[in-house]
């Protein structure tokens, strides 16, 4: 028994990691324009323009919006007018017209004292999904995706509990269902061996190219809602790389600089951020 006590003390020591703030100064490259926009066909284009900050920060984690920036957006070379609008307390430059599928959008932004930036992307086709289904008190949700063989496709999958409002099924976006994909489809070694569930899953079409594939999503909690909705976004390569690389940070995690100090993809020249086409399909269904 005494031996066990020594052993527990030893292992406690082994496992007891010590964490403290580092004295290493964090460098700063200076202020840069941050340009963010996911361009969804049949929707107005919302352009968020902010300024970067030093990494080390005490007291304010908000990023200042550049309200007086010169923002230009071109649709296949044709300029679209934009106006400034505050939504949910955040300022955006918004187009008057909706985006269209298969168009190329170019954004140029300038602001006094900062280097001008530009970025461009096109809007992809809509993902083809069908046959959503789930049973209550189980942890499986199924749907079918048909991949377009003619293109290289990138997808993001999310899932929500939903409710019927005025005869229309509405996703509860504050209640994202955590899930994981069948490991054979998402190419994640971690999923094979781990027990991790995600708010969103990114896949490319390497394994499903041109196929009609039944996706089986394993939820972290048993299904209890009466309705569910599956959201599948179609992306181009840039948007896919961006969402994949920023998953941890976007959803509240921290980056481990020792393990994986990889760069975040950005297609914004001279600045930070992402301009990416996105096209979303929704699948709504009643839980059985």
């Amino acid at each position, binding site marked *: 028994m005494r031996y066990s006590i020594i052993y527990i003390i030893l292992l406690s*020591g082994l496992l007891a990691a010590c964490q403290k703030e*580092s004295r290493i100064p964090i460098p700063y490259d200076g202020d840069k324009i941050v340009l963010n926009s996911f361009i969804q066909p049949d929707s107005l284009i919302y352009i968020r323009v902010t300024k*970067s900050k030093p990494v080390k920060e005490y007291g304010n*984690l908000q990023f200042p919006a550049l309200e007086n920036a010169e923002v230009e957006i071109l649709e296949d070379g044709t300029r679209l007018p934009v106006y400034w609008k505050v939504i949910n307390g955040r300022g955006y430059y918004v187009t008057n017209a909706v985006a269209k599928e298969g168009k190329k959008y170019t954004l140029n932004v300038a602001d006094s004292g900062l280097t001008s930036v530009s970025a461009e992307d096109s809007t992809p086709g809509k993902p083809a999904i069908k046959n959503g289904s789930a049973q209550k008190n189980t942890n499986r949700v199924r749907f079918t995706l048909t991949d377009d063989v003619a293109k290289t496709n990138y997808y993001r999958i999310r899932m929500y509990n939903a409710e019927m409002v005025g005869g229309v099924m509405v996703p509860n976006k504050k209640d994202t269902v955590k899930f994981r994909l069948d490991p054979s489809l998402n190419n994640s*070694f971690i999923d094979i061996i781990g027990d991790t569930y995600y708010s969103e899953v990114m896949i490319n079409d*390497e394994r499903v190219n041109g196929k009609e594939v039944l996706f089986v999503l394993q939820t972290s909690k048993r299904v209890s809602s009466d309705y569910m909705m599956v959201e599948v976004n179609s992306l181009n390569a840039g948007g896919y790389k961006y969402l994949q690389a920023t998953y941890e940070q976007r959803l509240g995690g921290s980056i481990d600089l*020792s*393990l994986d100090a990889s*760069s975040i993809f950005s297609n914004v020249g001279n600045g930070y951020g992402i301009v990416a086409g996105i096209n*979303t399909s929704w699948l709504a269904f009643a839980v059985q």
Partner: protein
Amino acid sequence: MSLGKILLGVLFICLPGQVFGWDWRTKVTVVLKDRPLEEVCGLLEKEYGIRFSYSRNIVDLSRRITVNIHNKPLKKALEEIFDPYNIRFARIGEQIVLTEIKHPVYTVSGYVQDIRTGEKLIGATIYSPRQEAGTITNQYGFFSLTLARDTSSLWVSYIGYVPQRLAVKGVGKSQVSVVLTPKNSLPEIVVTDSVYARSQTNLLTGRMSVSPADVKSMPRLLGEADVMRAIVALPGVSGGIDGGGALNVRGGSPDQNLVLLDGTPVFSASHLFGIFSVFNPDIVKDAAFYKGAFPARYGGRLSSVVDISLKDGDMKQYHGEAAIGLIAAKAMVEGPIKKDKTSFVVSGRRSYTDLLEDNLFNSTSENGDENRAYVYFYDANLKVNHIFSERDRIHFSVYTGQDKLVLNRASGVSQQDTVYETTKTRFSWGNYTGTLRWNHVFNPKLFANTTGNYSQYYFYTDYSYNYKPVSREDTIKLFGKYYSRMQDAVIRMDLEYRPGPNHTFKFGGGAITHIFTPGVSRFEDKGSGEKTVDTSYGAGSTVGGEVLLYAEDEWKVLPSLQMNIGLHTSGFLVQRTFYGTLQPRLGAIYRLPKNWSLKASYTHMTQYLHLLTSGGIDSPTDLWVPSTGKVRPMYSRQASAGVFKTTNNRMYTFSLESYYKIMDHVIEYKEYTPFINTSPGNWDDKVVSGRGRSYGGEIMLEKKKGTTRGWIGYTLSWSERRFPGVNGGTYFPYKYDRRHDLELVLNQRLGKHWDLSASWEYTSGLPLTLPTGSYEGVGDGSPYDFPDNVPILDWMGKRNQYRTQSMHRLDISATYSKKKKWWVKSWTFSLYNAYNQHNPFFFVIVTDRKKQERYLSEISILPILPSVTYSVKF
């Protein structure tokens, strides 16, 4: 008598003294210290008018000599001076003519072994002081020395053994068996003297011998002496500051080290994520370490060779050792199967962390979910050695070792639950090796070793998930597994031919079949009966064939100049792509007065294997892959030069060495490749090939005698990499780049029973990539879906442009040994990280939304770790 006759007689009597001024009886005095023989001749001519005649092409008078002759007859003095160098002298007229004596030669060959156990001694020195010629035993304890027939005796010496004079007159054609007696039989504390052997071997071949005594003089982390840790403490070598870790030699990556266990490659050399090496120290006989001046017989890796030889087993009687510590227990038994003919050694070691009941890894949550986890490692060795005849003997050895981690989780075990759900994940990784070696002595000058071996490294994980609703039929039984494997099957023959003391020719060839299985996964939903697709790198294996030929000569060019000249050539065929290389190897040493030496080497090395590493640290999941049509073999060129000094009493040695190394076609994953990638397609589409370079200097000062021993090693080094698309295609510090590295190792013997050890390591900061700005992120197109918390992203600066702070750590241990009638017992007390230094292991950016703060945080592991181990040896 006529006047004429009288005058003639006077003339003849006086002539030598008057005309030549000297005769053989002339008394001479010659006192010179460490001067060339040529100066002896000059002195005699100047002082006594004695002129010498000789051809420089025939007679070498550059050899240095210390002479202290007072008032001796000339003939006796010359005999004393010239005879040891086989120089004949004769008087012709007024000159003394010098010529070389052509002695008939003969060859002495045989084995050097321990008198008690019959264990063959590697690197034992056989030396003729009179002829200043000698050799060392090879990896099998065999030696061959061709000398002048009138050589009367040889001296044979080895670390920790009483030197012995070997009378060779009358030795016939048969082999000799030299038995050496340990200085302390069955000692309470092993007293060793590695001075002679290490300095000699080091000088001759660039080989650094790490004896078991060196290993046991290191502090014992968690009670374990460790050969790899002793190597890490040498200059030019670094490991993880916490817990040992992988071996990085002169800026190379861990996969660039050829680790051989009885000649068989071992792909993963550590347990418990680097805390222990896989080599049980109780059965390690010798470890040779090369970091430059690679002999031509080695190939296949760029940065180092660690050649570990296991004990053969006691040929005389049974012995054993057993030890138990806080983490692991181990035992070893050796003895004769047939006395003086066949011996065996068997050993086993296992951690027993999983066998103890503890609450650290096992828990039950409030809702009844049960979690269990356990981890352990084991290894086992068996070796059998059989002597068929004086000419033939075989060695057969096998090794297996494994680390295992199991995680179990069960939920729904309570009565209220509607679903029963269990998951079980198992990880295991380890090595299997098997070796069969046949030593054959063709004749006293020609020795051959034929080896067949097999080595496998594997990483395996499986996952099972059972899901069973109580009230409905929707049972799910998911099973998945993933594994990667690297296999080598080798057949090779090595020959040693020693025609005389000035040459040792080593040559041979071999063939290696490399089988790469970089990642296979299988998934099956047993509930539905459907087999799912494989997501691995191809679900199959790639076979690569390698053939090699080599030849080298350890050549004593001059008495003061020795060289190792060799050529290693190999070819590699994989997927219809062939690569062939010629790899020249050159090592030289020039002896200066006062035991100083100059060393220099230039080597080319080729490596056909690559290790795909994800992220910033090495892990068991890393994948061995071959060179392909897209990814070329790694290729290095290394030049090094240095000086070496031994004090006259061989108490201290000092070495200073510098090196420059270039490595071509090193690889890493392209950017934006997901962590631990198992996606389909060719892995070689997902990597980028670049160049590495490293350079620096190493200093080592060692005290080798007395009750206080140890060394100070200092390394100043640079290690850089260059990849297209990273940091603008310019060189950046490699992740193992350490500018300053200081190692202090101290061993103190106290009386008969206590042995104290300490090691202190200091390293300047390691490369670190830091973010250089933070900015707002986005996840959705619609601003109405913007999350409550602003996504904060960090923009990474240039790769490895920043440094962590310096790191240091002290390890100490004390061993108390007591000899009983039949056995020796010992207690070892050790402290790892004795002053509890918090060296950072991970760096993370912490975001505290509540306080609206962001800062850089460092996480350290492995605080002070005490341990105690009890062992017995009989």
